[in-house]
Structures are given as structure tokens and as C-alpha cells.
């Protein structure tokens, strides 16, 4: 099973750090909230874990994989 970043929407405050760290997977919508465009390619898994750790709202998790 492949890994995917999943947003905890009620917790997300649109800090936007995730999109800065992992633009290959995440971009921001017009209100600044993350759009998870695709699954995390295996090569980017370490970076995805960093995204999870560095989210100021602790609002993103890595599921599956």
C-alpha cells in the first residue's frame, strides 16, 4: 500500500509549511489550505515525515505505506 498525506481539516490553520517542504505533493488552494495532489512517492517519504513533524498545528499525518 502506498503512503498518502492526510490532513486533519479541523486542526489545519493554513500555515502552508507543508506545501513549502513538499511542493511535489502539496500545493495550496486560494485560501492557503493544502491540496494533497498525489500519493507520496517512495523517494519523498523522508521529506513527507518531516512535513508531518513540522506542521505547527500537527494537522497532517502519513497514512498507509
Amino acid at each position: 500500500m502506498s503512503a498518502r498525506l492526510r490532513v486533519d481539516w479541523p486542526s489545519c490553520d493554513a500555515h502552508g509549511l507543508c506545501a513549502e517542504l513538499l511542493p511535489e505533493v502539496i500545493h495550496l488552494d486560494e485560501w492557503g489550505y493544502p491540496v494533497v495532489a498525489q500519493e507520496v512517492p517512495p523517494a519523498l517519504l523522508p521529506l513527507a515525515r518531516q512535513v508531518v513533524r513540522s506542521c505547527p498545528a500537527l494537522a497532517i499525518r502519513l497514512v498507509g505505506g
Partner: protein
Amino acid sequence: MTTSSIGTGWPAAGQVTSVGGVDVLRGGVLLADAGADASWVAHRRRLGPLHQPDLTTLADWCRAVDLRGRGGAAFPFATKLTAAARRRALVVVNASEGEPASHKDAALVTVAPHLVLDGAAVAARVLGTTEVHVVVPSERPGVGSAVRTAIAERQRAGERLRWRVHQAQAAFVAGQARAVIELIGGRENLPVTAWAPEAVAGHRGRPTLLSNAETFAQVAALARLGPAAYGRVGQGAERGTTLVTLDGDGAHPTVLEVAFGTALVDVLPDRALGRPVLVGGYHGAWVGPQDVAGLTIDRAAMTEVGARLGAGVVLPLASDGCPLTRTAEIAGYLAGQSAGRCGPCRNGLPALATEVAALATGTGDVARVGELVGLVAGRGACAHPDGTAQLVRTLLLRFPAELDAHRRGWCSLGRVATRVRP
């Protein structure tokens, strides 16, 4: 009691009971005793003692008739039941019915409270628990009083279950599964992110069998009748009956029980024939008149026309109604019902509602509406943004000619063509 001319497909019933301004037609199984004495003694006299299959049997029977949740998500009940069958399980009956256009759970709980509670009791016993929570709506007080009266009767009769009644907030999203778990846990009655299904980790992380009120009544009926008699009616793999709310936000809402496979036109009032129908309620899908003509009430047929029965709300477009204006009104309502916790929903739904309203007045931008639909779908703790997106998506899909007419300044789907802008 009066006689109704609305056919129910099966069985030909006709007697009507009024429940809080809603006409409830007597039906084949769940609503067979609508209008009769709903007390414990009368209920038991009619149906006999509670039938109690074991876990394996009940799960097999649920699979045999393809029993699915009737709260909207249509999740297979056997899967939920077997997933919850672990230590420290509990049962939650969700009768909160947050959608104002749906009345079937309120009607069912009011006319047959013990049937719903029977289903919960059967489920509790197969799960080896005595803990059952019932969530009732605050804006329909008759439901809570019917439940409390019924529980008191059961306790007097010596039933050894620990019932707890909770009152959901009067909000569209308050009845969502996770919002209900929050309520039971003493927190704010709003949706939160579900990292696991409720049956795996629900209330306090415990296996929680949370289902809609009608689903539990279906379980009771199945436990009593067995799969053969229960499945005597139905369509394909989907056996039995289902509850439908017709015209739920209109002047005369009607709740009726139909066999799966019943033709939709058989339950629609004459004035609705040849008109588009919003199937599945405010989170539902528009179905055009051509598709309505051949549509039957079952999952396979609904899927073919891009719709889902959801919680069974069927809203025919009024004879002078315009689907764009109607959708704009509903989208506006749904935007106001966002709990405001999830950014895409809080920002996206009002923006979407504004754009849909602009479509109705002929000034909107279809591409922008499509973009907003894509931005809200799947991006929230609950299905509120998804449902709203589906409503609007099907508007764009089903009414291209009408969208075009509005763009040119005319509304043609109302009986009389009217100018929508100068």
C-alpha cells in the same frame, strides 16, 4: 385516518398517520403498525418475543439480504457488525436526522420506537454488551419523548440494557457519525477527523456499532423474519424495503416504506411527473425527467443515473420551480450549515453558494463553479463539503440547456418562461 392515493409499490397500503405535520403511510414491514398502539405491551403482542440470532447467523443474514446503513452512506451492516464484535463494544442508535428535508427516522421512531430499540437490543446482545446510546434530535422533541417512554417501558419489563439518551444539536452536521461520537463523549457535537472507522475505534476508542435508527429497525425485522421472508421483496441482491421521505421541505412531507426496486414514478405525486427530481436530499443528485421515468429505488439503478438514495430523501422540483434557483437556495443553506471548522468548507461553501446564485441570475461562471466544486470535495472532516459538491456537480451535468438559457437571460424550466435578468 384517511386513505391515500399514493401507491407504495409494495405492499399496497394506504392508511396515513400524521406525525408532527408529516404524513406517514402504513407500510409493509417497518411501518406495518403505523398508527397502531406503539406501547411495549402492544408491540410485543403483535411481534412476539425478541428474536435473538447469534453473531454469525445475524451477520450471515445481513449479507444474504445486503443490509446496508440507512443514514446515507449505505455501508454494509455485516461488515460494521463483525468489526465491532470485540471486547468493550457499545451500540449507538443515531436518530438525530440532521437534514431538515428528511423525516423518516423521526416518523419511524415515533410510530414504532420499540422496533428501533429491538434492533439495538439484538445488536447489543450479539456484541456481548449492555451499553446502548440513543441520539435524538433537539428540534423534533417528539422523537426524544417517544424514545424515553419506550426505554422506560422496556426497563419496567425487565430488559437488562443500560440505555442512555443524548440530544443532538439542531444542525445539519450534528448527526454525522463522528459528531455523534463527540456528543456522546461530552464534547462539542461537531464532526472531527476520523482516523479509523467507528466500529474499530469510536467512543473512547472502543468498538462502536453506530448506525442510523432505520438500520436498527431493519435489523430487528431481519432477526424476526429471517432472510427468506425479509427478502421476499427487493431488487437483485438488495432485499427488503426502505424508508423514503417525499417532499421533505415542502408543504406536505410524506414518509413511506417501499420495496427496493419500486419505480420512482409510483411514489411521486402526479404534479411531479415530467419534472426533475433531487434524489438523496440536499447532499443528493439531480436526476432529469427522462431518467426519472425509468428509475427504480435501488442502488444499482440509482448508480446508473449517477445518484444515490442516501437517507431516502426524494425532492421533486415544484411545477413552477427552477433547478438553478432551487440549487442556489440549498447551497446557500448548506454553506450556512458548515460548522466552520475546516478551512476548505468554511471558505469554499459560501463562495460556491454565491457562484451558484449567480448562475441562477444568469451572471455566473460555470467554469468557476466547477473549480470551486473541485476545491471543496473530499476536503473536510465530514462529508458536508462532498455532499454540497455533488449537488452542484449534478446541477452542472443535468441542466446544460437551462444554464445556457439563464446565461441568455431566460429561465425556461419553470412552466412560464421568465426573464432572470434584463
